[in-house]
């Protein structure tokens, strides 16, 4: 029993933290966001920054979860959770999370499946992938059973039709991993984003991030584009989603820590009634309680990552991993809204300003707390998993 991160993990954390401090300080983060209501209009330096992404990928952050045979470097989910937490602390928005999730599905399909040849590029940051799962009227990212986007047989292959929503960095990525209904069942297609019949529109959301809606108009796809077996998406996707949720919980823990750190700094400097407002217990006790809750969420996410690394050996049926992943993400999602709302409150009106950091954390929390399932959806899943193992 040892909760200390290994030296490699500590080094990875330091490397990421230094990278963001040097290359992506808070003002750079603010500049990267588009203006409210800007839609697809990009100002200079806004949206996806390929140079920054390349530099980030050069840290090796995309190799962590890949097997050695595919250019992986073996720090596993524990390493990915460390990276995710630092991304959250810095609020760096990139295709990292979805690319790692898509690679997970590609790896599960094995060398014969679609995308194996892309993994070298994935490891180097040269191939980015976005998950296209959500649809209108189908807001549960865990459910593949009632997809409206369909892939119908056409000649030797398929044509994909329908609309996907909330695809992160849909304008910028190289590939899309599209969940589509086929007569065999739900199937994952991996297609180049510039393939015929694909139209991308950037959404305008609270987070001012890079969500896109994507229309597929009879987009051609071949059997070779299928990651895994036709109709066989559900199992690998559930496993990949559980691991993605753990990483996302770690990201939210980092987001919470970032918001808390900013707030502690501000309340130590801001004076009212002749003293720093942090010296009032009305402030300090609330910050202390949030710090303890963040510590709790970090422990649960860390446990999820540890379970995730054990889940590759095939000995586990994923039950515990899925339950802990859902529980950790629901906890982190609720906490992110609580911490960032408290951060706004403690900054007073200043926190609302465009140049202030609290509002960025607050807006990102709105989006990121729901990204891989709302707390209610997550608790539904955890409830079913708990009931399945409850004493008879």
């Amino acid at each position, binding site marked *: *029993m*040892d*909760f200390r991160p290994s030296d490699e993990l500590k080094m990875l954390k330091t490397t990421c933290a230094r990278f963001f401090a040097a290359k992506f300080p808070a003002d750079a983060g603010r500049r990267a966001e588009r203006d409210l209501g800007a839609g697809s209009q990009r100002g200079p330096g806004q949206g996806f920054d390929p140079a920054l992404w390349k530099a980030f990928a050069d840290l090796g952050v995309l190799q962590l979860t890949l097997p050695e045979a595919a250019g992986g470097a073996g720090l596993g989910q524990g390493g990915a959770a460390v990276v995710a937490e630092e991304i959250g602390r810095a609020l760096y928005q990139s295709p990292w999370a979805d690319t790692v999730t898509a690679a997970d599905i590609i790896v599960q399909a094995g060398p014969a499946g679609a995308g194996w040849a892309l993994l070298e590029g994935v490891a180097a940051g040269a191939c980015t992938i976005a998950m296209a799962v959500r649809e209108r009227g189908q807001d549960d990212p865990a459910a593949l059973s009632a997809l409206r986007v369909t892939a119908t047989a056409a000649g030797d292959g398929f044509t994909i039709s329908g609309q996907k929503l909330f695809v992160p960095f849909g304008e910028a990525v190289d590939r899309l991993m599209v969940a589509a209904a086929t007569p065999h069942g739900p199937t994952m297609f991996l297609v180049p984003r510039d393939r015929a019949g694909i139209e991308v529109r950037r959404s305008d959301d609270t987070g001012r991030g890079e969500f896109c809606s994507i229309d597929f108009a009879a987009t051609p796809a071949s059997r070779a584009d299928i990651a895994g077996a036709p109709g066989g998406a559900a199992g690998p996707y559930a496993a990949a989603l559980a691991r993605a949720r753990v990483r996302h919980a770690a990201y939210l823990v980092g987001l919470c820590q970032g918001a808390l750190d900013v707030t502690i700094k501000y*309340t130590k400097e801001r004076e009212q009634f002749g003293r720093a407002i942090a010296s009032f217990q009305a402030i300090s006790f609330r910050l202390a309680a949030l*710090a303890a809750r963040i510590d709790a969420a970090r422990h649960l996410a860390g446990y999820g990552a540890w379970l995730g690394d054990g889940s590759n050996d095939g000995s586990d049926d994923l039950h515990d991993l899925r339950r802990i992943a859902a529980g950790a993400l629901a906890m982190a999602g609720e906490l992110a809204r609580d911490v960032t709302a408290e951060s706004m409150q403690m900054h007073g009106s200043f926190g609302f300003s465009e140049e202030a950091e609290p509002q960025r954390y607050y807006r990102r929390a709105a989006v990121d707390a729901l990204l891989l399932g709302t707390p209610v959806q997550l608790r539904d899943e*955890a409830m079913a998993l708990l*009931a399945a193992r409850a004493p008879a």
Partner: protein
Amino acid sequence: MDLSFSAEEDEFRQDLRAFFAEERVQGILRELERCKPRVEAHSQQIYQWLGERGWLAPNWPVEYGGAGKTAVEAAILSEEMARAGVPDTVHVNTVEIVGLFLLLAGTDEQKKRFLPAMARGDMVVSVLYTEPNSGSDLSSLSTRAVFDGDGYLLYGTKIYSLTTQFAQYGLAATRTRGGMSKYDGITLFLVPLRERGVGIRPLWNISDERFNEVVLDGAWVSPDNIVGPLHGAWELINTALSIERTGLDYYVKMRRWLDAIIARAAKTGRLEDPRIGHEIVRLDAQVEAGRLMVWDIISQLQRGELDNVQAAMSKWYNTEVGRHIARLGVDMEGLAGTLSRWDGEAPMGGLLEAAYRECPGLTISAGTSEIMLYVIAAVGLEIGD
């Protein structure tokens, strides 16, 4: 990071489970369930059986009656006692708290005189800190110890002390001199409780564990029973308090209560009703996180380290969840949830009804939630006064 138990640790857990499942233990536990009101459920016999194998204080050296194991096995014992429903407050006070003081600061003679008897389950020692005017601000205590040429005469009143009705000794914090500061002049004594000058009476409270008032009116204590430095125990008290503050004893209660709720909800079908099930899984995640915070600290102790801020977080977190678990346990059953175990028709054998009465004490004992938040803010975040 490695969150698994060693084969040896797993084996110790299995051995404990097998022991607690023995009929002689189960028979006593069934008897304890039938305890009358105001009779506290406690079995020294089970402790003695554990003590025969060195299991009551598994992390103590063999020469003092332990099994020479580590803080991990000590924590496994706490988990398994709670899981089996073996009352543990006497064990916490005697072994985990007073035993720790003796290991940290006792003389060789004191260790030999007290530790083996405590580890065998033959001696119970309680803690006498709190006074009518001295609670969270312990350094304001006013119980006096006056040197009479041979030993010390103690005068003062200690209250809200648990398990003293079972105890032969009490570890009392006293003032032996008026010092330059209120932190100076504090001395710890192991006070023989069944002697002249000691009056013990119950202060009845709403929980199933009795408070005691201990009036010390010239109780004589030998200097051989001073634990730690004369006049200088303040630092020792704080060291021991923080080592004791893992959150372990609280977390094991939370797990036991929530497991009872889960089992009951599975039986009644409420586990799959989102109105109840969602609250259960919310609390399940919190108890699981609390468990990890506790084990993080246990693993630090095993290496001889301790992060006081993390420990305060663990104590705060693992006790704050209690009120929500107790409330759910009662709410889930409606008014039937308020039936006590003496009613005969109480769901979950009245465990959650008792939890509702017990849980306000958890955020108070061993450092209130407010003191924990103060430590986190002042030491961890470096804010506040």
